[in-house]
């Protein structure tokens, strides 16, 4: 799903969106996570925020951002590793192979742990900071390079009464 009424922009000074390989080999670009950890975290991000219209690649980019953070901060790397162990240890089947209700219940059971908190907060931090997600949900992002919204719809809402001038 894309919102064709808008175009989302990243500020030109921000790093450009990462382009990950489409196949399972995408995990090759990661610095810290092995394939199992990476796929488990992708599954977790998807279980936490199951947007049916978003492609798998946005969740992979989210985990790519986790990996970059883990490469910088050993304590964070350890938190992600703990998370993978926690969710894998909950059932006789690895987390990433569980059905949705079992995955949801597994996450609910560990909500109070620091590892869960790290993964949940980091998913919000990076998933909704993704240009493709902005485009899908109608957020246009950077505006100054286009002259702001003064001539691009800052007051174009037309389904409510127009407030009087000078209100």
């Amino acid at each position, binding site marked *: 799903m894309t*919102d064709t*009424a*808008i175009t989302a922009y*990243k*500020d030109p*000074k*921000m790093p450009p969106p990462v382009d990950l390989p489409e196949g399972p080999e995408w995990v090759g670009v990661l610095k810290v996570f092995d394939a199992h950890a990476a796929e488990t975290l992708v599954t977790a991000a998807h279980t*936490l*925020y*199951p*947007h049916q*219209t978003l492609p798998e690649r946005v969740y992979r980019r989210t985990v790519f951002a986790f990996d970059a953070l883990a490469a910088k901060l050993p304590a964070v790397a350890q938190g992600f590793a703990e998370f993978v162990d926690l969710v894998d240890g909950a059932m006789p089947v690895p987390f990433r192979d569980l059905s949705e209700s079992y995955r*949801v219940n597994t*996450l609910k059971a560990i*909500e109070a742990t620091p590892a869960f*908190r790290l993964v*949940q*907060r980091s*998913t*919000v*931090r990076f*998933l*909704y*900071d993704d240009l493709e*997600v*902005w485009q*899908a*949900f*109608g*957020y*246009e*992002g*950077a*505006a*100054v*390079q286009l*002259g*702001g*919204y*003064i001539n*691009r*719809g*800052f*007051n*174009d*809402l037309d*389904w*409510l*009464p*127009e*407030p009087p001038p*000078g*209100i």
Partner: protein
Amino acid sequence: MMTQYELDDSGVVVIVGSGAGGGTLAHELTKRGIKVVLLEAGKHLTPDDFVNDEWGGYEMLSWLDKRTASGTWRAAKDHPLSPSWSCQVVGGTTSHWSACCYRFIEDEFRAKTLYGELPGTSLIDWPFTVADIEPYYELAEAKMGVTRTNGLPGLPANNNFKVMYAGAKALGLNVSTGRHAINSIPYDGRPATIQDGFTITGDKTGSRWSTLNVEIPRALATGKLELRPQSRVTFIEHDDAGKASAVVYVDAAGVTHRQKARAVVVAGNCVESSRLLLHSKSARFPDGLANGWGHVGRHYLRHIIQTVWSIFDKPVHMHRGEIMAGMIDDFVRHDPARGFAAGYYIEMNSMGLPTTAAFLEPGWWGRDFVSVIEQYRNMAGIFMSGEDMPQPGNRITLTDELDAFGVPVANIHYDDHPNDLKLRSHGYKTLSAIHAAAGAKRSIEAPSYPASHNLGSNRMAAKAEDGVLDANGRAWEVPNLFIADGSTFSTGGACNPTLTIVALAIRQADFMAKQMAAGEL
């Protein structure tokens, strides 16, 4: 070439922090011919450095050093290591703020008298009246270019405002786009807003007032100011007579310096100001500088701030345009009939997708969250700022953990007072009712984000036993030590605090200049 002062020049006024309070005071003192060294922990950025990116801007501007939190407030659960929100950059949080500019009303200067005895509170009246501050409000509004003052038009209605307007009108409330230190037309050499919606990540065009783009350049132009960015003050020293004599700071290279001073002004944004005083212990002040009465760090306030986000049938695109350009003032006055003391302003709020997702309800996940955030384009935001009650136990203290500069990490303790909870609940109901009246399908009562209005923790009081400072923001116990930030507030009032911080800084400059001319400072 910037003026430079020697480290052992004991004729300079040293100001710690270049935000609303410190940056304004630096300009007001230098304008009066007084020599000032302005020490600022953050970097000196330019508009070119800023980005139109919520997280990019947050990471560039914010005070990210660790703090801890305790008490019943949601920040202790949701943001335990960053319970308070401010900036570390030249310009302080005025490089980030959304520039709502309202005055305290007369009643708010006599909170104790008006609200009466409320168990658990430590209410006092301000040590002056509205008449004392009014002339300074006028000067502040003129320098900041506040809309709807000095002939400046209000900001135009944007999409999010149209929603607020429709709901407010249906309920018979008094609604306007409000007052802001954001240019609706060119003013004071700065352009009109282009409505990019990114004042909070630095404001690349300069249509919004900040100390970075107005006060500090003008202070530098007087030739009386030396600005030292990336200078972290770690200690304030005093002499045998008990007067502040020097500040110790660490520069960008990690080198420690000692700047002598004629007077010291602390303006580090409340938490940092109390932290610095508490840490500046000596034989004479064993509990911290100016803390003989034990008030430093206490009576901490952060306003009743919360947002309701609602989903409508059709697109709003709330991110387009100035983010807080809407105001309703029907609930500002204290009205005992409501069942609680004090009042609140209703304002507008909008955020981009990244921070809406983060602040909607931290910790919320699953299909319900997803169904809400997917409708971002149809979302509107409405916000309130109300008065919280001072309590002696709501306070900033030092923990055992040291930061990279050897200064103990601060803990902020805050328990909600029953009056706060009543006001909160009343506010949520009003905010949701306004959106419902405009046709909202669903409203989400989002909890407070980290404290953005940090006040009261070094308060002014008519008597030394009631507060840290006298009516001029001068420490009762240290005659040449001043505070110039929101921590001086005797009580919080309902409105966003910065206009009052700026007015008080101008007033303080007048006082200091007079004292100096009289040979008393």
